[in-house]
């Protein structure tokens, strides 16, 4: 049986936070290279929350958000989910494609640009994780959905729900000039993978 989020001690949480930090830093660098502009990043916030409070973080369960979902394979199994609110998504696509659209709906181009951002975020995170742990990790192609926050979030929450009643969420703010983009990042190791992960980080 795997351990759940609520059983983690403060040192284990600190280590996971630090990985979040490094991963987000790498992601900011990668994004910045892609658009050839400087991207600043705040220190990510790592929250451990009860299920029912999660949708509030992205503006309530009925707010329309973009969810990008990946599967993690290799030495540990799990999933990664990136959630970006629609306003931030629009800013990001404008930034990436160097334009100033105010259109509320996201078109095919926008969605594919967002998938790429998701790829960068999860790839950066996983590569720092892989470097620190010496675990062999690969990430699947992304799957994207635009819908109510509650419905999107139910996916990682259900995955976490198999082992506990709380989730771990890494909240990161990126900014370029006047653009501020908030991304929420969930890492969901499968049941036994948490233990493998913590062991290889030397904190289990």
């Amino acid at each position, binding site marked *: *049986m795997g351990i*759940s989020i609520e059983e983690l001690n403060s040192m284990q949480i600190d280590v996971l936070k630090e990985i979040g930090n490094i991963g987000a830093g790498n992601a900011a660098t990668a994004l910045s290279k892609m658009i050839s502009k400087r991207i600043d990043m705040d220190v990510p916030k790592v929250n451990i929350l009860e*299920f*029912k409070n*999660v*949708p509030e973080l992205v503006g*309530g*369960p*009925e707010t*329309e958000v973009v*969810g990008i*979902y990946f*599967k993690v394979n290799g030495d540990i199994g799990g999933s990664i989910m990136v959630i970006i609110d629609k306003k931030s998504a629009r800013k990001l696509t404008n930034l990436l494609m160097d334009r100033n659209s105010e259109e509320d709906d996201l078109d095919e181009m926008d969605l594919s640009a967002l998938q790429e951002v998701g790829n960068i975020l999860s790839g950066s995170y996983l590569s720092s994780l892989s470097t620190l742990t010496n675990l062999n990790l690969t990430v*699947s192609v992304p*799957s*994207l*959905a635009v*819908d*109510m*926050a*509650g*419905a*999107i*979030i*139910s*996916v990682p*929450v*259900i*995955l976490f*729900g*198999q*082992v*506990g*009643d709380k989730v771990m969420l890494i909240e990161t703010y990126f900014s370029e000039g006047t653009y501020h983009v908030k991304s929420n990042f969930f890492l969901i190791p499968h049941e036994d993978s948490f233990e493998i992960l913590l062991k290889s980080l030397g904190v289990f």
Partner: protein
Amino acid sequence: MIDIIKVGMADLNTTYCPGVLTTLGLGSCVGICLYDVSTKISGLVHIMLPSSLQIKNNSNEAKFADTGIVKLMEVMIKMGANRRKLISKIAGGAQMFNFNDSSEIMRIGMRNIAATKETLKKLNIPLVSEDTGGNYGRTIELYSETGILLVKTIGYGTKQI
């Protein structure tokens, strides 16, 4: 002004007429409404997983289809609902993300629906209508006055079931 009572994820609540019960942004989860047609006592449970038997940490009864529906029925009976007058309506159980290899975990919505129906059948509570499956989220509102269940979506319209 009619009270609108919110039901969170892995949670349940009940009301006497004319209360309204709602749960926002159902994805792969399933919202199960029980309604006593004689007293109009209404209940709503928002379940996340099919079975409490497959999970170690199963203290929250409202999280699972099997225990959540039973618990909701018990609460309603305590409030004075008539067991034999209960009907049910369900919504949710979508598959929000698509992958080529549909693993067990990705099909959780379908499994939630199946477990819900099985539990309702075991309890002999007729399922009168449903709006389930698909790949989109739903917000539902149960009106105890009429027993109508309103299903709202983004881009897929609103309907009464």
